[in-house]
């Protein structure tokens, strides 16, 4: 049974067909920032959303893999965004969340935590409640 909902990836303006945009200077504050807006929108539209390296099926980092495993163990449906295709996603995400590392799990619009916190909450039984 699929527990992920990768549709959130579609919401973000990232595409392998636009490699020329990778590595551009960050958008100045005050100007339109479509990546930041797309991230904010994805967080608000998905009850549980994980920003990770790779995909739930093929995590590209042990911390992301462990976080996915905790969510899957609880059988919680979640949206997933791969931050690797465009470095600006991570940059904007961390600016929004004030959290420097990946993965980042959000529930009901709020940052739940990274791998360490999610794992700790899973082990203590708090995670399923936080994702209600």
């Amino acid at each position: 049974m699929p527990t992920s909902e990768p549709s959130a990836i579609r919401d973000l303006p990232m595409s392998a067909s636009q490699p020329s945009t990778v590595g551009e200077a960050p958008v100045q504050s005050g100007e339109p920032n479509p990546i930041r807006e797309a991230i904010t929108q994805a967080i608000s539209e998905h009850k549980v959303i994980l920003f990770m390296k790779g995909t739930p099926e093929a995590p590209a980092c042990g911390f992301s893999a462990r976080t996915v495993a905790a969510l899957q163990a609880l059988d919680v449906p979640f949206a997933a965004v791969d931050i690797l295709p465009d470095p600006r996603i991570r940059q904007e995400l961390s600016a929004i969340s004030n959290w420097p590392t990946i993965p980042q799990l959000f529930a009901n619009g709020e940052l739940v935590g990274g791998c360490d916190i999610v794992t700790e909450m899973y082990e203590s039984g708090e995670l399923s409640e936080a994702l209600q």
Partner: protein
Amino acid sequence: MLSAEDLKQRIEASIPGAQAEVEDYTGGGDHFRATVTAEAFAGRSRIEQHRLVYEIFGEEIGGPIHALSLKTQTPQKTPTP
């Protein structure tokens, strides 16, 4: 390259009363695991506790520090008899 001892000293210097145990778990000077015990964490959420530690390193996280796995806690209180 950073050492576990560098991180330990910076955490303990930045958070008053903190005790840090830091391990370089790959031996490569860029992936660390830290347990930080500090009274300063009392009354703060886990997220806020981790932010206090992350803020010490700023842009170094994601740069020279590829990973900093954290466990934060407040000191165990000895129950008064």
